């Protein structure tokens, strides 16, 4: 479609800009919808909306959808309006890559034409080169703008889309646009080599033409300048796109990972039951109860503190050996002797051996207890000598009952 009268086209666009934006939002409309929309935007209520629709069609603002009675805005108009609105469309990395390939082809053609000083061919090739360079620059810039708009849309979420959808869009942008573009711009990659080569060729051609066809040399220089600018800008735009999107992408990965993990776990619970997953073992929250044990806790804490204490006074080992040391025992001797007194057994040693064995005590405990019993309690030794087996030991003593304190004999084999 060509615009036969650009001035009239632009004047109409200026007068009906709001209507054009509504058409842009609607994308496709039936004839009825179109008439209704046109009626809403008529300056004069008496005017005919049908006439306005006819003008839209005649000036090329609208086109018929093929095999349909619906209408749409043609692609060039859509892009023009979106450009005015600073709404940018995304250009695929494949498309951008194809510009680089076209530049390589044009470079070869230029080299050949310059060698032959084929002025006519050079006049055709140089604008083509400039066109591809500018397209590349504008499309990468458009991508940056589109990504920035998407980031703004994400943050505002006016469309009330759920988290899942919004993050999916971010991941899609990153993986389908930025990552491939990064590969294209990588200094080790084909595109970089192609652009380096084009730069060299343009410089050589410019030098060759300077003497022979100075006007074309200047045009070649202009293309070279465009190339410099494009290379500078696409790297800057790409970096900016990365900076815009990267935090959201990282967040998207983090969030979608959490959600995916939750869904996976729920699916496992549904299929195999909650118990099978033993999630309590993952959390490992203890169930100990220690109410009322503060005194124990305080004592333990104090013991740990004492264990790590560094004494100020030096204690020498030889001095320590001279000190009388009472052996530590796990048996409560005082209580045991009280019970012994109360029980008044006929054979004190047999009684003690049985009790100490039951309490897990050793031979040391038995001898200590027996010694104290003999020394401190009223006991009477009989005439009978008896062997008492205790663990690996055999004790021989006269049978002693609780009574008056006599002499005792105790032998340890």
């Amino acid at each position, binding site marked *: 479609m060509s615009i036969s009268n650009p001035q009239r086209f632009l004047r109409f666009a200026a007068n009906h800009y709001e209507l054009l934006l509504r058409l842009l939002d609607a994308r496709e409309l039936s004839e009825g919808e179109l008439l209704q929309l046109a009626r809403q935007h008529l300056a004069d209520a008496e005017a005919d909306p049908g006439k306005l629709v006819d003008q839209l069609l005649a000036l090329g603002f609208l086109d018929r959808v093929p095999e349909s009675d619906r209408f749409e805005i043609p692609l060039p108009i859509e892009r023009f309006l979106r450009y005015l609105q600073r709404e940018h469309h995304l250009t695929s990395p494949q498309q951008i890559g194809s510009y680089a390939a076209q530049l390589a082809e044009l470079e070869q053609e230029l080299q050949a034409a310059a060698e032959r000083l084929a002025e006519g061919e050079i006049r055709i090739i140089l604008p083509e080169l400039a066109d591809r360079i500018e397209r590349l620059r504008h499309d990468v810039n458009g991508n940056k703008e589109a990504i920035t708009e998407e980031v703004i849309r994400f943050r505002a979420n006016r469309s009330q889309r759920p988290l899942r959808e919004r993050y999916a869009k971010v991941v899609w942008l990153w993986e389908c646009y930025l990552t491939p573009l990064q590969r294209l711009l990588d200094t080790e990659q084909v595109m970089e080599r192609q652009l380096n080569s084009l730069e060299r060729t343009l410089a050589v051609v410019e030098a060759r033409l300077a003497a022979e066809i100075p006007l074309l040399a200047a045009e070649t220089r202009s293309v070279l300048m465009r190339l410099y600018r494009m290379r500078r800008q696409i790297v800057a735009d790409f970096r900016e796109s990365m900076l815009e999107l990267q935090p959201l992408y990282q967040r998207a990965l983090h969030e979608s990972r959490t959600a995916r993990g939750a869904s996976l776990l729920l699916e496992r619970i549904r299929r195999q039951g909650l118990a099978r997953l033993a999630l*309590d073992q993952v959390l490992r929250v203890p169930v100990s109860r220690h109410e009322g044990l503060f005194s124990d806790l305080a004592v333990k804490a104090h013991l740990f503190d004492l264990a790590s204490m560094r004494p100020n006074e030096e204690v020498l080992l030889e001095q320590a050996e001279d000190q009388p040391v009472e052996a530590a025992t796990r048996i409560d001797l005082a209580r045991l002797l009280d019970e012994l007194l109360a029980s008044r057994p006929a054979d004190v040693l047999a009684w003690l051996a049985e009790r100490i064995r039951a309490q897990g005590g050793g031979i040391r405990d038995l001898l200590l207890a027996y010694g104290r019993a003999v020394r401190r309690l009223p006991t009477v030794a009989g005439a009978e000598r008896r062997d008492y087996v205790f663990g690996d030991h055999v004790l021989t003593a006269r049978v002693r009952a609780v009574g008056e304190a006599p002499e005792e004999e105790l032998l340890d084999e």
Partner: protein
Amino acid sequence: MSEQSRFALPYLAEIFGALSRGRHLCLDDGNLFVELREHEREFEELFQHLGYQMIADSRGFYYFHALDSQSTSPRTAKLALFFLVLVEALWEESSDINDLESLLLDRSWSLGELPHLKRERYLELMRQLDQEPDTETLRDLIRQLVYFGFAAWDGEERFRFRLPALRFLDIAREVAEGLERTQNPEDVAMTADAEASA
């Protein structure tokens, strides 16, 4: 215990009592949290002597991690189910501009706002709690979340999650990371099972 003792720690009894019952302590717990943070190393060392492993989570909370020889609360598995359902529902349905953590933590909830009884899929999952789920089931779960310090009541019928609730998100994330490592969902699930039952 002497006043100069390294282990003469403030609120020791209260802190130990809470942590050993499985409670998670965070800034909301006032002095208990403040003293824990102030004397973190001493508390950690003392509890270690007593046979407990205290975890100081960098996100701002403390809890006991039961050792192999210690019993764990089976109730927490039910709480994890409750939480996972909530996360999935938020992910699928919420149009809020915030991320999941903020969605969970930066607001209070009423029982009526919870998604657990609103979709058949969630109801089916909640039946794993061995009873037909209803509002009372949810209320009971919230009570348990409050008991362990994962949530706090915010009025009679409202509650809010506390920072330690992030531990449930950690579980989901760990499973997904396992998935990314193996690229095989079955493997991950098996790994999770094995780790869980270890």
